[in-house]
């Protein structure tokens, strides 16, 4: 039992050192990057620039992935490419600077860098593939029914 408590203390001390820095970064991002900006720019852009913006705008805000679903829905309804919305969601899920910092701390630079690079590559491929399957390109926006969030975004 002493072993458990020693390990618990060791781990808590480590987290208490990292968490405040993570919280400060999260706070700054949510202040500097308003959600309206994200919706505005991503919805109008296409091509390589759109992919790039999708990654940046997905990566900057903080919060759990389910916060991003209504925004992604709004983007699709406003005519954003399905591929960009998928890339946006994936970037939101796994490309976050505070998150990468914690990954770096616990799993090491090699692990973090390899996973980040592979994720970016495969997420773009996945986005384009899903767009192909769904059959809605830039000029043929998908029709979504049951969207209740047009008004409040």
């Amino acid at each position, binding site marked *: 039992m002493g*072993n*458990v*408590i020693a*390990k*618990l203390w060791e*781990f*808590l001390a*480590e*987290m208490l050192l990292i*968490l405040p820095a*993570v919280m400060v970064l999260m706070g700054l991002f949510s202040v500097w990057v308003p959600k309206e900006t994200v919706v505005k720019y991503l919805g109008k852009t296409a091509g390589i620039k759109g992919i790039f913006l999708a990654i940046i705008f997905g990566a900057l805000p903080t919060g*759990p*992935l*389910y916060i991003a*679903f*209504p925004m*992604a*829905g709004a983007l*699709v309804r406003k005519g954003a490419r*399905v591929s960009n*919305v*998928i890339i946006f*969601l*994936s970037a939101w*899920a*796994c490309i*976050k600077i*505070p*998150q990468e910092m*914690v*990954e770096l*701390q*616990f*799993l090491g630079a*090699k*692990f973090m860098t*390899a*996973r980040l690079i*592979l*994720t970016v590559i*495969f*997420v773009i*491929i*996945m986005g384009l*593939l*899903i767009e192909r*399957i*769904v059959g809605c390109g830039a000029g043929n926006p*998908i029709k*979504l*029914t*049951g*969207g209740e*969030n047009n008004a409040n975004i």
Partner: protein
Amino acid sequence: MRILPAVITIAIFISLLQSFVSHAQISKIIGEHSGLGGILFAATMGAILHIPTIISFPLAASFLKGGASVTAVAAFVTTLTMVGVVTLPLEIKELGKKIALLRNAASFIIAVIIALIMGKIL
């Protein structure tokens, strides 16, 4: 500070895991020789569990230390962030069944591919 209870829960879980689950047990289930089954098990756990990513990294690190393979840990971390079984109903409501199901299925597959590549290069 909403994250604090989750941090403490995970801290307790990791301490218990490291004290009571042996290296041999972890490496048998998700170690180098657990094969594709181990990778798929790790990926499935990542898809089902709903824990904040930031506190999942120390958990992943303790799996690695405990004898899990890089491939299994990479699969776990990647599906944990990208695939959400718990949040799927919400995703379907916002994006429609087709996109939501495709995104989760494709994310699961690319997570396994990313993990396999990482196991090869690291």
